[in-house]
């Protein structure tokens, strides 16, 4: 449905997007993940024909964003980072205006305005001025605006930014509800959001594509080795403890986290597929120290993300 091939966007002095390629299948929900300033918005703006790429091609539903932008625009619903609202309009009036811009009219538009206001939970504020709405409502009106012409592709730029936790949940539910009918790309830097909503992730950092994979593959890929948090008391020389721990079979790396008076904390990484907890405990006790903490440190998407983007930075 969406095909991005070698797209770059260069400005004098810096490159916002650097040779990105990915594809999105029809009906998929894709999370566009990256730290602030990674080039998410730029990529989305290229897909929505807001700006052309400096090089490379992108197409939506088979239409090129440069040469057939009218066709692309007809098929895309776009919610920019700040919802493009006119404060002086009433909600229903605003949705009607956007519908007309997208080429709708007459009875079908009137019906569609009712439909999307129901769907996005803004029916109760239909006749309120946009300027009087709370942030959550504004965001939902923004979503309603994006789906008014029932587009094949939805592009949502940080749809939950700046909302309170309740509103975030509501918005996520709303997006999940839309998932069946539309192909969705949503950008975010909130990871649990991606874990909850998306089937696929595209991670970019500093304008470069870092990873593109299904949610499951991505977490599995990073979960091969185990990380264990360990605290030892009774030995003030942390070097001695570290050396001892490093000699335990199956340990690949020992990192000193904290050394205080007579206790020190480590994070220990195992080799792939090895369970080293029992061996670690034994080693500590045999040396005559006290084992005060031993816990698995889980690898959240957050760390996957940090690892991926950090390694990209250092590379």
């Amino acid at each position, binding site marked *: 449905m969406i095909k991005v091939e070698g797209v770059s966007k260069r400005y004098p002095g810096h490159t916002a997007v650097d040779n990105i390629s990915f594809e999105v299948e029809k009906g998929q929900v894709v999370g566009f993940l990256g730290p602030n300033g990674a080039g998410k918005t730029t990529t989305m703006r290229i897909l*929505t*024909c*807001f*700006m052309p790429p400096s090089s490379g091609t992108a197409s939506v539903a088979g239409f090129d964003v440069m040469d057939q932008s009218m066709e692309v625009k*007809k098929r895309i619903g776009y919610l920019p980072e700040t919802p493009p*609202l006119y404060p*002086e309009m009433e909600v229903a009036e605003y949705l009607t205006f956007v519908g*007309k811009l997208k080429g709708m009219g007459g009875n079908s538009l009137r019906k569609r305005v009712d439909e999307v206001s129901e769907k996005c939970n803004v029916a109760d504020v239909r006749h309120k001025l946009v300027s009087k709405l709370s942030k959550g409502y504004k965001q939902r009106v923004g979503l309603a605006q994006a789906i008014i012409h029932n587009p094949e592709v939805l592009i949502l730029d940080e749809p939950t930014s700046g909302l309170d936790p309740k509103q975030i949940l509501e918005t996520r539910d709303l997006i999940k509800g839309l998932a069946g009918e539309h192909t969705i790309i949503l950008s975010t830097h909130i990871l649990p959001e991606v874990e909850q909503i998306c089937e696929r992730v595209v991670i970019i950092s500093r304008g470069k594509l870092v990873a593109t994979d299904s949610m499951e593959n991505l977490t599995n890929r990073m979960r091969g080795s185990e990380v264990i948090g360990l605290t030892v008391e009774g030995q003030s020389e942390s070097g001695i403890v570290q050396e001892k721990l490093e000699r335990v079979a199956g340990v690949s790396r020992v990192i000193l986290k904290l050394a205080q008076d007579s206790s020190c904390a480590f994070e220990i990484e195992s080799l792939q597929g090895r369970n080293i907890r029992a061996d670690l405990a034994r080693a500590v006790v045999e040396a005559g120290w006290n084992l005060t903490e031993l816990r698995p440190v889980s690898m959240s998407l957050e760390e996957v993300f940090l690892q991926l983007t950090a390694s990209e930075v250092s590379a």
Partner: protein
Amino acid sequence: MNNILTIWQKEVKSYFVSPIAYALLTIYAVVSGFFSYVAVGYFLDRSIGAQAGRGGPMDINEWVIRPVMMNVGVISLFLIPMITMRLFAEEKRSGTIELLITSPIRDYEIVLGKWLGALTMYACILSLTLVNLSVLFLFGSPDWRPVATSFLGMLLQGGCLLSIGCFISNTTKNQILAGAVTFGVSLLMWTFDWFTGFKSDAWAKVLAYLSLTSHFEPFSKGVIDSKDVIFYVSVIALGLFLTTRSLESLRWRS
């Protein structure tokens, strides 16, 4: 065509749901009312002289309506920047420009719709003059034809400044800046023909030709000269063309 109508409708509405329209209408009503009153006052003063056998023939068109219409031009010089400054600057600041640009409508449709919206607002303001002039028609019998051509001229002249203002508003996010620059440019275009007062070389002639006022003169006398109409229409077209191009270039720059 439908898209132009949609944008036009939205623009006109946004003038009238905000205080802008009412503020501009009020300012205009007060100032143009004062000007008309003064013009009529002079006329009465002269008519006393005329009764005593001094002065030329009394002509209400020449002595009241023409000065009033010239003054209307001066007032619009101040009002037009206030009409155009928000056109694009506001959409750029609030981000709604993204909605317009990513909708399946052409750039020139956006520009034309907005310009027509501003022109409608300007026409509403101008029409207040009719209230002042109608008093003259009630108590006298001026010729209506120079009045009609003056209005046409005013609309054309306003259209020029509006299209220039449209372009300037599209070059910035800052409304105040857009308004100030538009005012400066309008004032210059208004006064270009002052050069001919002390110079008569080619440059002075070119600048005088570019002056908006010199092309309005015939209209105020009831003459519709095609060369003036062509001048105004081409300035309008140039302004709108530049606006469309700068809207396009927004994509390459942003």
